[in-house]
């Protein structure tokens, strides 16, 4: 009698456990499905489809699909404009790392210095990041204008009329003018990241260093900088990835011109796809961007893991 009731008890327990498990599986499916569908369709599926389209010769406007294997990639390797745009992307990566991050850091440090009106300075420093890129692009077209641009007016003020020129109209200066604008736009963003990280550094460290007679420079080199290292790595990743996929400002300001001198991979992809109607070839440019970004991210992450391992 007693045995039977225990058995019954156990079987009920097993049943409720199974029911619980079933409920949990249903919950997992129910809760995750909406996100997985949208993400799966728009991101995952699209990446595979980009690769698939890149294997065809296809205009995108008719049904004339011609499978040609890796032909598009072979053409791409011999395409001078693609190499030029990859070069410009690399230039942008380098310039972003060398100007945006240091400028962001300087602005962030300044916000902790004993000057008056910090709130005002911070608000203005941050404003460029909130503007839409299209607005920035149009604004800077006028700043760089050869006839009445602000930059030329400023040069005249300080007696450097000889440098006056149509900054984005000339091949030699266009890319630098555009890169400077990108830096103007994004330096404030890194300021915000660094500022948040500096707030997190314990005050006592600085107090102790001051008692030991450390100068401001020493305190920065031995306390601030090492403690900021993780955020600097994060910023570097963001800056590199951002520079590799950059599009908006170039499209608005120069459309990649004059004569491809400001062409980036993304603008080249856009032109091939939506202006020249080479959807197959455009897809191969686009997929190459993905591969390049993927490999670089992988390298940074592996490097970062090694660095952490050493410490």
């Amino acid at each position: 009698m007693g045995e039977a009731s225990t058995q019954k008890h156990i079987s009920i327990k097993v049943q409720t456990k199974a029911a619980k498990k079933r409920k949990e599986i249903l919950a997992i499916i129910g809760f995750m499905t909406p996100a997985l569908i949208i993400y799966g369709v728009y991101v995952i599926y699209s990446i595979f489809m980009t690769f698939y389209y890149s294997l065809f010769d296809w205009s995108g406007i008719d049904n004339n699909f011609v499978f040609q294997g890796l032909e598009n990639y072979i053409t791409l390797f011999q395409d001078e404009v693609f190499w030029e745009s990859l070069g410009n992307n690399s230039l942008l990566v380098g310039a972003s790392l060398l100007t945006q991050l240091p400028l962001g850091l300087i602005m962030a440090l300044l916000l902790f210095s004993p000057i008056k009106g910090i709130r005002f300075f911070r608000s203005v420093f941050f404003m460029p990041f909130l503007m839409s890129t299209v607005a920035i692009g149009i604004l800077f077209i006028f700043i760089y204008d050869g006839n009445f641009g602000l930059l030329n007016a400023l040069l005249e003020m300080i007696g450097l009329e000889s440098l006056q020129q149509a900054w984005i109209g000339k091949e030699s200066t266009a890319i630098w003018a555009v890169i400077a604008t990108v830096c103007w736009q994004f330096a404030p963003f890194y300021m915000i990241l660094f500022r948040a990280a500096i707030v997190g550094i314990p005050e006592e460290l600085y107090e102790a260093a001051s008692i030991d007679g450390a100068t401001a420079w020493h305190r920065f080199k031995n306390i601030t900088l090492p403690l900021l290292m993780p955020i600097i790595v994060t910023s570097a990743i963001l800056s590199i990835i951002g520079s590799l996929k950059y599009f908006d400002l170039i499209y608005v300001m120069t459309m990649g011109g004059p004569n491809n001198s400001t062409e980036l991979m993304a603008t080249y992809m856009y032109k091939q796809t939506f202006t020249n109607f080479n959807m197959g070839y455009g897809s191969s440019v686009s997929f190459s961007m993905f591969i390049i970004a993927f490999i670089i991210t992988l390298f940074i992450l592996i490097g970062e893991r090694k660095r952490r391992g050493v410490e």
Partner: protein
Amino acid sequence: MIKRIKQMPLYVLAIVLLLFTGLPFFIMVNTSFKSQLNFMTSPWSLPESFSFSNYGLLLEIDFFRYFMNSLIVSVLSVIIVIVIGAMASYPLARLKFKLNTPLFLLFMVGMMIPIHTTLIPIYLLTINLGLYDTIWALIGPYVAFALPIAVVIFTQFMKEIPKELEESAKIDGCGHIRLFWNILFPLLTPAVATVAIYNFIHIWNEFIFALVLTNSSDVATLPLGLREFYGEFTINVPAIMAALTLGSLPLLLVYFVAQEKIVKGLAAGSVKG
């Protein structure tokens, strides 16, 4: 006094940076109040008389519609991201199952994918769905590309909520759905603010999807509208500056009202990403 002199270099540096970041803005706003003639004769002076006629011009050309299109798309996308992102994070943070880590990583990878890699298939898909050239075309891609950061932030945040809360709710017979909506979701508020701010700024200013997925001017979002306006009024610089000022105003206003929150949200969003 000596202290003041010592601080001089700091002030100089601060003012140089202030000019660097602020001067383009000042020029933009300043020019927007000028007449065309005033601009031609002295492009850099203060306006001879403040005139709002350039802003009046904007109201004639559907600026309000661009603004509404942007607002609808941004708000809807952010709401959807928050709801389905938080939902997806619940199993990832609180339930144990085999695919837990792989699924989380799948979302995380999304943060490193250049959106341009998906542009062509999304363009074709949008045409096939019959959404091309409507503002609804934009919501799918905006939600999809905002999801990774939302899922990562929500999952990390939800993991830190003490398990005891759930245990007692479960004893009371609370199912997964009620547990999530009534108990966990309200506790996510700080994370919701971060996700909302971070994504709103990016979606509000988004350009390339809007450029590719819409075509006619009555569905244009603000960035596209600005560009269209620029194309039409190339010679009328003050009017263009008025458009740029008005187009930048909404985010700037929000920023001045909720500065701390926005700064924190952006920093948290990026570092976690």
